[in-house]
């Protein structure tokens, strides 16, 4: 398959993940969207690593996977903490930054 196919696929998944981040009410749902976006990035990286014979792409992918996992862990810990305090994790209700 040509490189463009993978890139288009990755862009599509990225857009879908963005859609999820923008629309999901539940905080966990938002995090799922973020997951998809990061996944799409990984596909991009590996595709370029393959098509340019550059090992850096794979290293990069590994690093991002590790970071993503850490981020999910911390992020969900925050969500649980919020839930404990406010008894809700609906994004509409978490508006303390309101101006």
């Amino acid at each position: 398959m040509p490189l463009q196919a993978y890139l288009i696929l990755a862009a599509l998944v990225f857009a879908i993940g963005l859609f999820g981040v923008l629309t999901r009410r539940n905080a966990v749902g938002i995090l799922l969207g973020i997951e998809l976006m990061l996944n799409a990035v990984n596909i991009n990286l590996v595709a370029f690593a393959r098509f340019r014979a550059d090992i850096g792409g794979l290293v990069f992918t590994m690093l991002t996977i590790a970071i993503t996992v850490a981020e999910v862990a911390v992020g969900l810990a925050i969500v649980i903490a919020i839930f404990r305090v406010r008894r809700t994790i609906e994004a509409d209700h978490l508006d303390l930054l309101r101006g």
Partner: protein
Amino acid sequence: MAETVGFWVMAVVLVGGSLGVVLSPNLFHAAVLYLPAALVATGAIFWLLESPFLFGVQLLLYAGGVVTIVVFAIMLTERLVGESIRQSSRYVFNGAVLAAAVFVGLLGFVVQRAVPPAPPAPAGEQMVALGRALVGPFGAALQLLAVLLVVALLGALYFARAED
């Protein structure tokens, strides 16, 4: 040939799973069914892109670890089931428009370049090359990653501690 078929099958699964993650009213379904499907499909694509090691990593960390964490989080919080898409999602139309716009924008960059020829598959053990790269040119990044993981661990511990 086989690669093409494999690609299309995995592509369909990936996109379908992604749509399911973002559109499913039932968060549990989204997290346990659709998300792992998408992640495994991504891993398969990695295999198709001649990096089986990353396929393994993807399955272990993403499809295994991340999904588990998400399930835990869902369990510890309420309101996982909504009746309709309107209850579980907000401003769907706006979001769809914006996401589509971003997709189109990215697409514009992708299609305007000429198709580069695919170089031959890299020879030699990929694992060895990866290992050498990690401790060689990317050694600093590895160290920083380690620090990051420790910090993240501590942070998660702090956040998830029992009330005192």
